[in-house]
C-alpha cells in the first residue's frame, strides 16, 4: 500500500469515527445533562448548609458526611431499610418464581390471571397506600372487621410498632409481584421446548424439570429482577409515605423517607439530606457492581 493510500485510509477511519461519535452524541448529551451534571451538582449541594429553596448556602466541606455516621436516626433508618429489603426480596422472588411457573402456559385462564396480577402494578402508589390504609383501618377497615368476625380483638396493624413494617412489606409485594411474575413468565416461555422433551425422555418429572431446566433457564432474568428489586427496596419511599408516613414511632421510616423528611421539613438541611442520598447512591452502586459480577459469573457457568 502506498503512503498516500495509508493516509487516505486513516482519514477514512477518522471520518467513520467522527460519524460514530455523531450517532452517540445525543445519548451522550442526555447522559451529561441528566446524569453527570446532577451528580456533580448534588455533590456540590452536599458540601453546603442550605435550605430546600437552595438559598443562604454556606460551604461546610465534608461536615455533612461526618455527621451522618453519628446520626442515630440515619442509622435507625438504614437498619429499617435493610430489614425491609431482607424480608421483601426473598418473598417477592419466591412468589414471582412460583406463580410464573404456574402461569407459563398460554391458556386463557393463565392469561386472565396474569392480567389480574398486573393490575396493582399500574395503580399509583398513592392510590394503593390510601386504599390499604382504609382496608386495614383499626376502626372501619374491612380486613379488621373480618378478623373481628373470626374472633380477633384489638386488631390495629398500621398503628402497631411490631406489625407496621410487615404491613408495608405486604403492600409493596402486593403492588409489584405482578411485574416480577410477567418478567419470569417471559423468561420461561423462551426456554426451548426441546430441553423439556429431552429431560422427560431422561425420566425427569415436573419438579425435577422445574429445578434442572426451568430455574437454570430463567437465571439471567432472575438476576436482573433480583438486582432491580434490591435497588427498588433500598429506595423505598412512595408506599411508606402514603401508608404510614414513616410511623408509628419511626418504625417504617426507611432511608429515603428520612432523607425526604430531612430535606423538606427542616430549615437548612438540604445539604445534609443530599449527603445522605450520596451515601445511599454509593451503597447501591457497590451492591449493583457485586450483583453484576455474580450475574456474569452465573451466566458464564
Amino acid at each position: 500500500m502506498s503512503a498516500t493510500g495509508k493516509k487516505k485510509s486513516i482519514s477514512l477511519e477518522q471520518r467513520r469515527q467522527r460519524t460514530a461519535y455523531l450517532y452517540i452524541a445525543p445519548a451522550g448529551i442526555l447522559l451529561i445533562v441528566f446524569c453527570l451534571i446532577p451528580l456533580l451538582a448534588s455533590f456540590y449541594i452536599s458540601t453546603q448548609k442550605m435550605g430546600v429553596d437552595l438559598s443562604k448556602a454556606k460551604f461546610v466541606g465534608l461536615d455533612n458526611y461526618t455527621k451522618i455516621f453519628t446520626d442515630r436516626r440515619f442509622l435507625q433508618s438504614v437498619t429499617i431499610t435493610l430489614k425491609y429489603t431482607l424480608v421483601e426480596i426473598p418473598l417477592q422472588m419466591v412468589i414471582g418464581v412460583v406463580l410464573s411457573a404456574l402461569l407459563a402456559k398460554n391458556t386463557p385462564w393463565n392469561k386472565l390471571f396474569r392480567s389480574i396480577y398486573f393490575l396493582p402494578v399500574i395503580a399509583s402508589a398513592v392510590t394503593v397506600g390510601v386504599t390499604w390504609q382504609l382496608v386495614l383501618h383499626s376502626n372501619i377497615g374491612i380486613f379488621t372487621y373480618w378478623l373481628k368476625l373470626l374472633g380477633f380483638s384489638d386488631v390495629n396493624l398500621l398503628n402497631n410498632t411490631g406489625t407496621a413494617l410487615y404491613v408495608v412489606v405486604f403492600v409493596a409485594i402486593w403492588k409489584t409481584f405482578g411485574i416480577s411474575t410477567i418478567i419470569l413468565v417471559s423468561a420461561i416461555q423462551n426456554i426451548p421446548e426441546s430441553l423439556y422433551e429431552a429431560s422427560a425422555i431422561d425420566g425427569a418429572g415436573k419438579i425435577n424439570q422445574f429445578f434442572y431446566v426451568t430455574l437454570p433457564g430463567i437465571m439471567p432474568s432472575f438476576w436482573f429482577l433480583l438486582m432491580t428489586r434490591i435497588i427498588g427496596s433500598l429506595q423505598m419511599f412512595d408506599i411508606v409515605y402514603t401508608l404510614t408516613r414513616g410511623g408509628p414511632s419511626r418504625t417504617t421510616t426507611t432511608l429515603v423517607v428520612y432523607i425526604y423528611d430531612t430535606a423538606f421539613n427542616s430549615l437548612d438541611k438540604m445539604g445534609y439530606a443530599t449527603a445522605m442520598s450520596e451515601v445511599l447512591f454509593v451503597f447501591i452502586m457497590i451492591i449493583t457492581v457485586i450483583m453484576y459480577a455474580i450475574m456474569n459469573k452465573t451466566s458464564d457457568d
Partner: protein
Amino acid sequence: MKKQICMALALSMVMTTGSAALVANAAEEKTTVVFWNSWTGGDGDTLEALVNKFNEESEDVYVDMTRTTSFSDMLQTSLPTGEAADLILLSTNEINRYGSYLRDMGDIWENTSLKEEDFSPAYMSMCYNDDTLYGIPFQISTYMMYYNKDLFEQAGVEKVPTTFDEWTAAAEAVSALSTDDNPIYGSGLFYCYNGQNQSVIQRFGTGYLIEGDEENGFKANLLENQAFADSMIWMKNLYDKGYNPQEQDIDSMMAAGQIGVMTNGGWLKGSLDASGVNYGVAMLPTVTGEDQKEYALADMASFMLTTSATDEEAAAAQKFIEWWMTGSGLAACETTNDVDYSNVTPNAEWSISMCYLNAYLPTSNSEEYQAVQILADLTPSETAQVQMFTAPGNLAYSDAASCQTDFVQDWLFNGPTDPTYDDVQEFFVNYQADLEDYISEYY
C-alpha cells in the same frame, strides 16, 4: 330545514365566540392574582365562595385560587424559579424558611385603607422578621377541646373538664360505655400530630421546648422540668389504661360518636356539624383550671406575597386583602338568632363560621364576633402564651416540631408503663440532646 339548521349553528357559533370573547375581555381587563393555599377541607368551600364573591364584585382584580393538599411541595419547587403564586396563605412559623422569597408588605398601609393599629399587636408581631412585614393575619387556629355531649350524659359526666385530672376522670367514665360491637374511648389524643399534642403539653406549664434569649442563652427544656414530666405521664397513662385509642384518625372516630373528649382546631367543626354528632366546644384544660386564658396555643396563618408577584400583581393582591378585611361577606352564617349577621365582613364571617380567632380588631371587637360565646371564651389574656414548640423567633420551629413528634410517639409506644418522673428523665436524654443540637445550629 337544512338551511335553518345551518343558520342556527352559525348563530350559536357567533354567540359562543362572542360570549367567550366577552369573558376573555373581562379577564384581560382585570389584573389576575394567582392565589394558592392548602384549605382543602370543609372550610375551604367557604373560602372559595368568598373569593368568587370578590371576583364578582371587583372591577379590576381577578383572584385565581388553587386549593391543594400539595401546597407545600408546590411552593418549595416553584419559589426558587419565580413561578409560585402571587398570594399565598402560610403559617407565620414558616417566615424564616421562605423569607427570601416573600415580599415586604409594609406598603400595604399606604396602598390600602388598612391601618396597622387595627391589628392585635401580639399577633402582628409574629408577621415581622427583622422589621420587615411579611404577612397580614388571616386566621388564628387555636386548639380547643371538643367533647361529645351525649357520651358525657350517658357516662354521668356532668362537668366539662377544666383540669387534666378531670379529663382523665371523664375519659375513664366514657370508656366504660365501650362494647365489643361499638368501641368507645373517653379520650382522643392523636399520637402523631404535633400541634394537637403540643396544645395540651404546653398547657401543663412546660413552656417552649427551647427556652431562653440571646442575652441569657438558650437551653433545651425537656429534662428537670416537672410540668413536662407530668404531661408525658398523663398522656402515657391515658393510652396504657385503654382510655385513648392508638389511632391516627381520631377526627373520624369523633364524628362517629366514639370519642368522649379530644383536642383539635376549628377545622374539625365543619365535619362534626355534617356528621350530626352532638358535640360541645370549650377551652382546653390546664393543671389548675384557673389559668385557661393564659394559653392561646395556635397556628396563625397569614396572607403573604411572594417574590414571584410583579408590583402590579402585588398591588392587586393587597386590594383583595383589603376587601377581605372590610368588604361584605356571604351573609350565610347564622350562629345565633339574636345577632344580625347579614352585613359582616368576609374576615368576620370566616372567623364566626369556623371558630377561628381574629387579629383584626374591628372584627374581634364587633358585636357579631363578641356574640359568639366560644370565640369570646377562646380569646386569650393579653399576656397569654401564643407560640408553640420553640423559643421566640421560631428559628428551630420545624426541627423542634419534628423532634416533638418523635419523642411523643417513642414515649407512648416504647416508654415504661406506670411511669415516674425519673423514668421521664431517663427516657428523654437523647431528645434533650437533639434540642441542644438545634440550639447550637440555629442560635
